């Protein structure tokens, strides 16, 4: 399967990428690792007429300790996130969830920014960064803006990113020793989650977000409030699907997804509290 023909241009910097996309209009798309976009283009589910390759913007591939948070460049590959000592120390939930993305070959090419910008609710990193209260830094023709993960996702494969904006950095608050857990339920190795749960807990503070439980990643705020008000893990986990709006598909019915969300949330909270 070969993608439809397109024009290919390479950007050397974020500024160049943004001016190139402004120049080429709606039919242009950024290409990072290509591990979401190229498969879609091969199936002709996406047919951009211009690809702006940002894969060589190497100054956006980094992990930095920035005091109260860590800063991850949008072009940082999954393999570099999962093996980063800074991520492992200060955001171990992110390192671990990233190590569950696809397989090693996929993680050698795919980037954190590509995964978030793609806005697939079945992907692991949108929900993980949402649970951790991350902020995304976005650069456009008129400068940069910061978007909390909770305001970024609008619907299936859509976000508030404008066509001429580029995700440049992901800021993840340090976990400061909080317990955490990542539960991913799938039937075959390497698959996307049928349902996934990313959770952390620090005493009466907890954050839980769900993978593949709506058209966007879902922050299970009811679970967090239940834990804050002293509910048991079992009772709090019963609330897991309260904010969700799952779809049925070949893998699971709506009811099964709701059930899985509660079971996986209970397991996640137990592990995060241990």
């Amino acid at each position, binding site marked *: 399967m*070969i993608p439809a023909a397109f024009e*290919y241009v390479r950007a050397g910097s974020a500024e160049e990428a943004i001016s190139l996309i402004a120049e080429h209009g709606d039919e242009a798309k950024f*290409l990072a690792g*290509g591990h979401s976009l190229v*498969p879609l283009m*091969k199936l002709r589910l996406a047919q951009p007429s211009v690809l702006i390759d940002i894969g060589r913007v190497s100054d956006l591939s980094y992990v930095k300790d920035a005091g109260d948070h860590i800063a991850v460049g949008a072009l940082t590959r999954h393999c570099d996130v999962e093996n980063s000592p800074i991520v492992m120390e200060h955001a171990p939930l992110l390192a671990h969830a990233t190590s569950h993305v696809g397989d*090693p*070959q996929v993680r*050698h090419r795919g980037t954190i920014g590509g995964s978030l910008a793609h806005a697939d609710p079945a992907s692991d990193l949108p929900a993980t960064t949402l649970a951790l209260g991350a902020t995304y830094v976005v650069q456009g023709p008129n400068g940069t803006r910061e978007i909390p993960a909770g305001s970024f996702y609008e619907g299936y494969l859509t976000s508030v990113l404008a066509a001429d904006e580029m995700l440049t950095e992901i800021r993840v608050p340090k976990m400061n020793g909080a317990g955490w857990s990542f539960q991913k339920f799938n039937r075959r190795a390497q698959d996307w989650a049928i349902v996934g749960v990313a959770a952390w807990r620090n005493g009466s503070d907890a954050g839980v977000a769900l993978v593949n439980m709506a058209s966007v990643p879902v922050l299970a705020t009811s679970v967090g409030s239940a834990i804050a008000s002293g509910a048991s893990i079992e009772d709090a986990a019963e609330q897991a699907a309260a904010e969700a709006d799952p779809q049925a598909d070949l893998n699971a019915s709506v009811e099964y997804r709701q059930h899985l969300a509660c079971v996986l949330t209970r397991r996640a909270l137990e592990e995060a509290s241990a």
Partner: protein
Amino acid sequence: MEISITINGQVVNADVEPRTLLVQFIRDNAGLTGTNIGCDTSSCGACSIHLDGEAAKSCTVLAVQADGGSVTTIEGMASADGTLHPMQQAFMDNHGLQCGYCTPGMVMAATSLLEENPSATEEEIRIGLEGNLCRCTGYHNIVQAVMSCTKS
């Protein structure tokens, strides 16, 4: 677009359409047909090669993305005198293949895995090869072959 990729130490120049996949470039432009296409949807790993030293699925990389880079395929694994790479020899010795279709991709994924984790455990090998499917062997002998190449 004029691109240049070093494949198994040899520079290959070609004028390709941007939509050319790296696996096509390897098979059609460089004439190296050891790299197989299986699923063509980035699931099976048959097309795995090393791009700049790390395993990647060449059906899901555009040739233009690899421009200026360095690729190793299964043909680049044995020495010039024909001595097999230790991983290839281990697949032979452990009967790690039957039809052989998945084997080039398995060997490339396994060598990349041990490059990153030379003393991988059996479990790490099984998880590390999750992107490579084999319809014949049941994986057991493949895992044995890779384990025989670890530093223990």
